[in-house]
């Protein structure tokens, strides 16, 4: 953009910068968040976000257009060596497909988050996220500053904001674009359940949450296609004994009990 002359001086540049106040973008956080929320943000397709969340926070991810794909990684805030383990999450619960009631487990036999609501039912625990190499092959570019950013590149940036490095990034989960395993073991991309679905995650420990909103790696569409992701979070309570989820399965109950034992020993509850 050509200069107008206004920014020739520090005083003019300051006035110019401050004049931006109130400008709205299609993808941006609302700060401060609206009443009742602790986080409200729209993440563009190809964008990422991240947040440290208190235990008991309910995080809602919504896909207004049917083209979002929320790739998610979870770490215990401040203790990132305890992190999401996708293999344990599916193996311990004898279930590859995420749905309401599924627990997202750490590698330490504890619950990181509970999937307490799900109106989509089309998610993926197996295929992880996209890479710069594969996006370059498929779309011509996979860099974070390019037109078709890869999920791993965005996770690397989000992780860095929390002092984490690429070696801290395990396989991720993704929401809103489904994959199913055929009887012969092949993977079928079944895509979206349509516009207007959402999932709600309840933080069962203090969490660092990384989110990359990029096309599913098996999405067959030749163009890089990803819609906006609506992120909101509000204070709520962690799952407690007596909640039907606590006793839904013997494996889940032991995961909650391990989590409670750990937090009690640390003096957190």
């Amino acid at each position, binding site marked *: 953009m050509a200069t107008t002359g206004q920014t020739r001086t520090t005083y003019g540049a300051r006035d110019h910068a401050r004049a931006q106040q109130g400008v709205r973008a299609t993808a941006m956080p609302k700060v401060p968040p609206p009443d009742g929320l602790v986080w409200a943000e729209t993440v563009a397709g190809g964008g990422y976000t991240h947040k440290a969340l208190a235990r008991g926070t309910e995080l809602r991810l919504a896909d207004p257009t049917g083209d979002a794909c929320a790739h998610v990684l979870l770490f215990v805030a401040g203790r990132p060596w305890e992190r999401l383990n996708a293999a344990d999450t599916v193996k311990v619960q004898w279930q590859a497909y995420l749905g309401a009631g599924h627990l997202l487990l750490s590698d330490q036999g504890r619950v990181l988050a509970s999937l307490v609501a799900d109106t989509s039912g089309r998610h993926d625990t197996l295929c992880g996220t996209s890479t710069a190499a594969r996006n370059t092959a498929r779309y011509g570019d996979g860099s974070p500053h390019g037109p078709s950013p890869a999920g791993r590149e965005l996770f690397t940036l989000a992780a860095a904001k929390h002092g984490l490095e690429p070696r801290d990034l395990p396989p991720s989960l993704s929401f809103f674009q489904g994959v199913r395993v055929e009887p012969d*073991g092949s993977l079928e991309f079944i895509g979206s359940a349509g516009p207007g679905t959402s999932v709600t995650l309840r933080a069962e420990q203090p969490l660092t949450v990384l989110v990359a909103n990029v096309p599913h790696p098996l999405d067959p569409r030749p163009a890089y296609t990803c819609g906006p992701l609506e992120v909101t979070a509000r204070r709520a309570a962690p799952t407690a004994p007596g909640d039907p989820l606590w006793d839904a399965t013997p494996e889940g109950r032991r995961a909650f009990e391990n989590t409670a034992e750990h937090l009690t020993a640390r003096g957190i509850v």
Partner: protein
Amino acid sequence: MSTRTAAVQPTTAVQPTTTDDVPTVTDVPARAPWSAVLPAGSHLTITDLHGNQAVDFLVYDAHDHAVRYSAPDTLQAQGGIFLTTGSVLMSGEHTPLMTVVADTCGRHDTIGGACSKESNTLRYGHHTWSQHACVDNFLAEGARYGLGKRDLVSNVNWYMNVPVEEDGTLGIVDGISAPGLEVTLRAETDVLVLVSNCPQINNPCNGFDPTPVRMTVTPAPTADGAGR
């Protein structure tokens, strides 16, 4: 040629072998870890000596351990969950680390991960807490190379049978392996391989009886066609 492969003892440090282009054969005892640095072009054959013995397996770029096996990238690349001949073990940067060049078993798992003391408490109960587990093997062996917990990710389980039902139910079921079956991998770049000969006794992945497996490292062919 100069190669670096595992020494005869399964838990000793990586040592240079002689310059002979002969395979190095190591029997890994039941429940033990093993590791080796394999130059590009060399082959590793894993033999299920007694049948139905899960072999938990991770692979890293020998020169940059942050470039490591990625089960998701491997599934993306091949479009299916089972590993067999032709499967390329991909890194998290979607680059090839090793290729399965021969497999007399038929299929292997990479969605079930490794057993751990911690997950055993969920899967079976707290009475299993004192039992040995693959993650402890990975941690012990990985520490010899400066690897720690952050470096462990979803792994390959050679000879383990994990079907996924139509409703998404999955689990470790009776194996399809048998004594003497083999899988052979070619290193596509210089790699570090970490292995846990799985000690699990609470599910059928080892036929409820962990047994030894054999590791055969064959040097890369030399330029004049010698070697293997």
